[in-house]
Each structure stands twice: as C-alpha cells, then as structure tokens.
C-alpha cells in the first residue's frame, strides 16, 4: 500500500484499502471558510442539531477578511453565533490569515492526518505528509453531522524532481512548468506524490507551494514523505506526537514522471488557464497594472523576503499597484521582525491585512476590463479577480516583485545572481 492508502485505511478502521474502494474516514481536522455559510445550512437541512466533534472543527474568516459588504458581515455574524452555540472554540477571526497557512503556523498540519477544508487548495497539507482534500459545503455538513466522510481511494502518480533551481527560480516556477507539461486535468480524481533529490532539499514553504498547486492539475490530494525538514518544522511548532506512514516498496504507481530543474528559467501561466505555461521571457515587456504578492501559494515569509530582496532600495513603478498580502498573522509578524514589510512599504507597496484578498475577485484589489495583473497566486481563470476582460499572469513571487519595479513583466533572475550588477 501507499502511505496515502495507509492513512485512509487507519482513518476508516480498515486493515487494507485498494484503489477505487469507497471508504468512510474519520476526519482529524475539518476546516470551514467564511465563504460557505451553506455548510451550516446543509448541516441544519440534514437535521443536524449538535456538531459531532466540535473539537476537530476549525472556522476561518479568510476570504472576506475583513468583511467588505453587509452580506459578508452578516455571514460572519452567523458563523460566530454558530461556533458559540456548538462549542467550536477554534474560530480564526478576520485577523488570522488564510486557512492553509494558519493550519501550518499552528502545527495542525502533520503526518498521517486526514485534513478536510471547504477550500480546494487543501492539497497543500501533503507537504506535511497529511491527506488533505477540499470539499464543498454539503460534504462539510456531513462531517459536522457525523465526524466522517466517504472517499474513493485514488490512483496515485509520482513526480520525481531532480537537478538544481537556478538563482531567482523557485518551486513555483517548477510547478508551473510541470502543470504546463502535464495539463490542468492530468491528475483529476488522482493523488500526486513528489519525491526525488531536489524535493528533499526544498523548504517547507516551497513544498507547500508545490502541493498547493496540484489542485490546478485536478488532484484530489498530494503527498510528500515526511523527512527531517518536516520533523524540524513540527518540532519548532511544538508538535511531538504524530504518526508517519511509509509506502511499501512494491507499490505500483498509476504514472511516474521525471522533471529536472537544472536550466529551468522563470515561467508564467498566461491568461486564462493555469496550464497555459511559457518561459517568462516570451511575455517580457508586457505592461502590468497590478502586481499581487500573497495567497496560500505565494504569501509566505520566504516569498516576502524574495520580494524585499528585489525591492530593497528601489521603488514600485509609478503606474503599478503593488499589493502585498501576507498569508497569515504569523507570516506578517515574522516578515515585520525581519524588516521586509518596512522595505516593501517604503518602496511603495500597499500592505493588505492577511487573508485571500484579491485572489478570488471579491475585494481588496479587483481588476477592471483590460487590466493586467501578475501574481504569485494560483488561478488565472477569466474573471478570477474581477472583470472577465482582465488578464492574469501567474508567476513566482520574485517575478511579481520584479514586474512591480519595472512596470512590465521582466526576468527576476539578475536580482538573485550574487556579484552581478543589474
């Protein structure tokens, strides 16, 4: 069996599970986002009166943090009442940040757990060896009612990462490259595991970016075998108890791929699809109106540090809005302590409170017709950040920062080559 199958088997109380089998798994962490008051409605429509396991439920106000319309405020209010009535103590209000980052910051993402959030990017938690998957509101209503949920055991594909990432080239460039090669529907209904010598050297932050983006290949979940980097991270968060699962040597994958990062140049996903990936240089010179650094994909301390390296001593282009949105309060505090926020704001960045912000086109940096945005986020669908006539380019945090300075898409690599003047 694969480690993912062992995690599912443990949660379902089965000795063994096989691909295609339907299993009912006990959910270790059930996260609800503020977008989906429907979760509460569905729970009530199912006849729910008392939440089955309130201590395993966590509610996040992240997509509307803070509320920007009366309806959003009303939805938040309903959630606060629901949590208080149901004894759900883990309510992350508007000052906390994006669900996936908050779960990582609090040491709640960890090996062997079944983590289900009403957010499609819950695949992120594969970075810690968890089974993380996104569900809709009514599936979450089932979890609130019963504490468990049914899953089909997925086929699993493995992506081996080799070589070295060059200066100014990041895990985000690599995963965009991979999605460009494999396609936006390559992993539909499947799980994606990352392995290989390069993967073993990547930080938790980079691993989270990889696993997060597997959603854009259609993946149900993702997985990275926990190692010393994972264990060090968990130790720092004060987490000592967890169960790590290992894949049996005779496990047969549904597909195996090799990607070598040596020589890879920065990438962009051009409008309007995440698999519409090209070398960034193909779009060099494209004028931008907005640069958006943030989200559960590219709003961590390392991402902000990389932007600060680019912006240090420079100014944001006068015709560009440069939005910086730390993924969580902890990220913001750490980036402040390191002086990065000071650097970025002095350079002309607009600092937005931790949360999803403009990513899904509800507030805090929406685009109008024909505007162009480059972002470290994960989606460039038509209308994703507002008007369907706006154009979104997905890139690494470094490329976002470099474009913010230049006012156009530009290769960020020169900022990262030591000893080479710009």
């Amino acid at each position, binding site marked *: 069996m694969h480690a993912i199958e062992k995690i599912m088997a443990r949660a379902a109380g089965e000795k063994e599970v096989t691909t295609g089998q*339907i299993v009912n798994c006990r959910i270790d962490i059930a996260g609800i986002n503020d*977008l*989906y*008051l*429907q979760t509460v*409605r*569905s729970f009530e*429509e*199912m*006849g729910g009166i008392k939440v089955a396991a309130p201590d395993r439920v966590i509610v996040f106000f992240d*997509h*509307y943090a803070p509320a920007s*319309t009366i*309806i*959003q405020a009303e*939805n938040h209010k309903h959630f606060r009442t629901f949590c208080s009535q149901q004894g759900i103590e883990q309510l992350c209000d508007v000052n906390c940040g994006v669900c996936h980052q908050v779960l990582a910051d609090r040491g709640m993402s960890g090996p062997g757990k079944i983590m289900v959030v*009403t*957010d*499609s990017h819950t695949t992120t938690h594969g970075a810690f060896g968890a089974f993380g998957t*996104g*569900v*809709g*509101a*009514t*599936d979450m*209503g*089932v979890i609130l*009612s*019963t504490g468990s949920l*049914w899953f089909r055991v997925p086929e699993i594909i493995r992506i081996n990462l080799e070589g070295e990432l060059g200066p100014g080239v990041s895990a985000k460039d690599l995963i965009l490259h991979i999605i460009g090669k494999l396609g*936006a*529907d390559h992993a*539909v*209904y499947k799980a994606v595991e990352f392995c290989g010598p390069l993967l073993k050297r990547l930080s938790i932050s980079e691993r989270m970016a990889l696993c997060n983006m597997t959603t854009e290949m*259609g993946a*149900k979940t993702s997985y990275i075998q926990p190692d010393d980097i994972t264990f060090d991270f968990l130790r720092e968060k004060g987490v000592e108890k967890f169960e790590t699962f290992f894949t049996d040597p005779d496990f047969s994958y549904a597909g195996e791929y090799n990607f070598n990062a040596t020589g890879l140049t920065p990438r962009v996903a051009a409008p309007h*699809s995440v698999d519409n990936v090209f070398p960034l240089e193909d779009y060099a010179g494209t004028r931008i109106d907005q640069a958006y650094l943030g989200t559960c994909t590219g709003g961590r301390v390392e991402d902000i540090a990389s932007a600060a390296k680019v912006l240090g001593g420079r100014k944001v282009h006068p015709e560009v809005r440069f939005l910086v949105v730390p993924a969580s309060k902890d990220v913001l505090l750490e980036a402040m302590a390191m002086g990065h926020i000071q650097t970025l704001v002095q350079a002309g960045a607009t600092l937005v409170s931790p949360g999803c912000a403009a990513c*899904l*086109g*509800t507030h805090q940096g*929406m685009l109008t017709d024909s505007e162009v945005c480059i972002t470290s986020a994960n*989606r460039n*669908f*038509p*209308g*994703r950040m*507002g008007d*369907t006539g706006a154009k979104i380019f997905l890139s690494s945090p470094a490329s976002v920062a470099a474009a913010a300075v230049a006012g156009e898409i530009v290769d960020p690599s020169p900022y990262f080559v030591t000893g080479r003047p710009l």
Partner: protein
Amino acid sequence: METQFIGRAFTFGKNIDTDQIYPGRFVELTREKDIARHAMEGADPEFVKQFKAGDIIVASTNFGCGSSREHAAITLKAVGTACIIAESFGRIFYRNAVNLGLPVLVCPGVSQHIDKGDELSVNIETGLIKDLTTGKDLHAQPLTGYPLKILSAGGIKTLIREKRTQRH
C-alpha cells in the same frame, strides 16, 4: 429518482472552471433564487436568458475545475439543469453536484458529437445518450455505487436525515 431526461443541449468547451460557472463576487449570496441569477455568467452572460428548466449541459474535459464553491452546483440546479454530461469533471464539483441530487455523467468524447441545441434523451442508469437531432447514440459511464445511492435518494441531505431517523 427520475432516471430518464429529454432536453436541449447547451455546449461548453474544456476547463470550464467554477469562477466561470459562478463568479467569486457573488459567493456571498445565500438564497437560491439570488444564486440562480448568475449561472454561467463568467462563460456566457446570455446563458440565464436562454437556458430553460430541463435543458442539459454538455462539456468537454474538466468541467467544474477550480474552487470548491458549492454555489457552482447550486446555481446549475437552481436554473433547472436536468443533468450535466462531460468528458471529465473537477472532482469537488462532481461531489457537490451528486450531493445536491444533480446528475452528472462522464462520457468520453461527448463534446465531439453533440452540438448546441441538439435534443438529447439521457438515461443516467444505463448511460445511454440518444441525440434525437442527429440520431447518434453515445454511451456514458453509468452511475453506480455510492454516488448512485446518493442521487437516488435525491441528495446526501436526505440520506443523512434518514440515517439519523433510523438511529433514534
């Protein structure tokens, strides 16, 4: 559960994401009749004017990819979609649709054979799709197992409610 539908086809291409099916800025809406007003707005602003209850959506691969927003399934159910046939579905959308009792059928190659406006007869138990306009027959993967059980109950809310009643 009704297993046989006759309706007009509304066709879409590949990777129709949930932002196109239901734009993010309307996710704050919670009443079904409000949600119904924005169906497919990001893909085709004329959709709600032309689509009639009982019509059928036909799409290429990865229909409903992207966000987990159940609004995408709610809006298509609310406008009266009889069923959705696609070459593949985004997995969260697929689950959401089944949970709401909205039939979804996987039919490889379907987008090559059906044109907008074709009249279709669809049997979700056998997977047989008859294009009454062209006379062509297509075979979708029939729904089976737990998803069929959920659909047959009219959605998962009914199933959970029934289980709850049996326990007490």
